[in-house]
């Protein structure tokens, strides 16, 4: 029967598809899924290798969430992440809009602006220390030109809870990333709808907010999702450039993990799970909000 033969072939194709998916499934399930399960279990008191097994036990979360400094840390974490994401978004959009226009030496500039993407965060942090610190290049330059009498009078940018150094490093690194994403979307959108709007009498502001922005929104959503998720969990910039206690949540977690009392690692794991929860809730609501908007304008 020809039908039976077709079915057998179909089954072979399906099995082959699963075989091809195996490597990535293994990585996802074992490394990511396994770590996640183990992390959550640890935060709930399951760590027999430390001689601790009170599973399930919410006391680590209770201790953490009952402490006022946890909320201060959370506030700082969110503040650095949100401000840096917004600034990167604004600068990235401006950069992408500039890049779709023609100007002299554009080819060179298209390589230059991507440079921070290839340089590691730690190098960016080192640059921030060299440039922005008291005694750094900027302060010495200001003192040299006579704006201030002594480099020490330079306003404190690094190691404050305002976090300008942390935000500067994030923005420096992430603006090109946002620009790259939105530039690609802009190329796909093309100039024609903007031109049509101009001919219909729209001014520059109306064209941007009513025609360009809604069309690049998918690029905005995906790039801000990625950088926000990074910023909320990033450790090295707030650790080196931050203002000390109270630290951001990832630094708090690191301090627990690094403590001589290794049972505090369970407390650290509760911190990490808290970060994941907060990030998850924010990112999920962000996406849900965007999906609602898309449905409202008829996109499915």
């Amino acid at each position, binding site marked *: 029967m020809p039908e039976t033969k077709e079915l057998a072939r179909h089954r072979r194709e399906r099995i082959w598809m699963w075989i091809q998916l195996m490597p990535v499934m293994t990585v996802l399930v074992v490394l990511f899924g396994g770590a996640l399960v183990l992390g959550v279990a640890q935060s709930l008191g399951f760590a027999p290798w430390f001689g601790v097994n009170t599973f399930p036990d919410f006391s680590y979360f209770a201790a953490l969430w009952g402490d006022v400094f946890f909320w201060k840390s959370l506030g700082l974490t969110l503040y650095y992440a949100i401000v840096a994401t917004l600034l990167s978004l604004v600068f990235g959009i401006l950069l992408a809009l500039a890049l779709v226009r023609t100007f002299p030496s554009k080819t060179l500039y298209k390589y230059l602006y991507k440079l921070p993407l290839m340089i590691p965060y730690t190098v960016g942090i080192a640059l921030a220390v060299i440039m922005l610190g008291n005694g750094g290049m900027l302060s010495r330059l200001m003192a040299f030109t006579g704006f201030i009498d002594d480099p020490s009078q330079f306003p404190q940018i690094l190691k404050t809870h305002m976090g300008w150094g942390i935000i500067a490093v994030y923005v420096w690194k992430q603006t090109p990333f946002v620009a790259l994403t939105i530039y690609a979307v802009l190329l796909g959108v093309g100039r*024609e*709808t903007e*031109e*049509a*709007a*101009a*001919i*219909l*009498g*729209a*001014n520059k502001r*109306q064209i941007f907010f*009513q*025609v360009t922005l*809604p*069309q690049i929104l998918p690029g905005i959503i995906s790039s801000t999702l990625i950088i926000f998720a990074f910023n909320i969990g990033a450790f090295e910039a707030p650790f080196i450039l931050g203002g000390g206690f109270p630290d951001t949540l990832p630094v708090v977690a690191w301090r627990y993990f690094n403590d001589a009392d290794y049972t505090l690692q369970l407390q650290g794991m509760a911190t990490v799970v808290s970060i994941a929860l907060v990030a998850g809730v924010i990112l999920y609501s962000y996406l849900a909000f965007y999906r609602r908007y898309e449905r409202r*304008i*008829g*996109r499915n």
Partner: protein
Amino acid sequence: MTAVQLKGVRKDFGNFTAISNIDLDIKSGELVALLGPSGCGKTTTLRMIAGLEVPSAGQICFDGEDVSEVAVQKRNVGMVFQRYALFPHMTVEKNVMFGLKVRGIDKADIDKRLTEILDVVQLQDFRHRFPAQLSGGQMQRVAIARTLITNPSVLMMDEPLANLDTKLRGEMRRFIRELQQRLGITTIFVTHDQIEAMELADRVAVIFDGNLAQYDAPDALYKRPNSIEIADFMGATNVFEASISGKTATAVFGALTLQDTVPDGQAQLMLRGEAIDLHLDEITDEPNILQGKITAREFFGANITYSVECGGETIQVIEQSRRMVEIDQPVWLTIPPERIWIIQDNP
């Protein structure tokens, strides 16, 4: 109702000259096609009239008034793009209302004009759809409505029929022609397709390499092109070398009598296939008789093209398919003197 004039318009992009020097006079209410091969500068010309490109030199005048320095937003023109450029995130009615909304027209007035214009383009039932849910013809009608609702003084279209299939093409051609005549709006469109230019335009401006090559009515352009390049571009197939002496043109296949005297010398002789009569019996009492033999036949439904060999040259004859003449059949061709066109290089 606006007359459009281009005076010595030139456009350079860096070292590349897109338009060398164009003078063009478009009368109020006229439908003009800018025709030329791709890269000839016709789209650049249209974009300069719209205000999307600034000319490097020259003047663009609307009703005698220089608008070269007027910004695109203030020029009050309309443009229908080749791929329509509809706003994908807006419904049909929001697309159509856009031009009035950004001008700050009050809502009652917008609603009234929206209803009117949607009736004109017959899209009332589609007002809440998104562009992605429309067919090509419907998208084009939305683009036209979006433009017309702002009462533009000049309407511009980029390849208006190029993206449509054959059936829709005829429908849109009639629609655009009828609308243009009813509103009497000066309309300029760009095309690389001579058929599209001839079927739609009152006058056709042929542009080659950034220069205006000929500006004439479609039938004049078709029957009396002023250069070999234009004849070629307008799809002429029967072009032969000939020497002119008085009212006689002598080609390889024989001598033909002309209606008017043209300067003596070497020239190109152009015959339109449908202007030649094909006879199966010998003819003696008419001017310009050529004897030949059919060597090939192509059937196009309504028409048949015969290749007729006459004294070593092949002449294409187009006939309505009321009969089928067999290959190898000896035939006699007659050509009316007024349908012979002589192209001579300008001195």
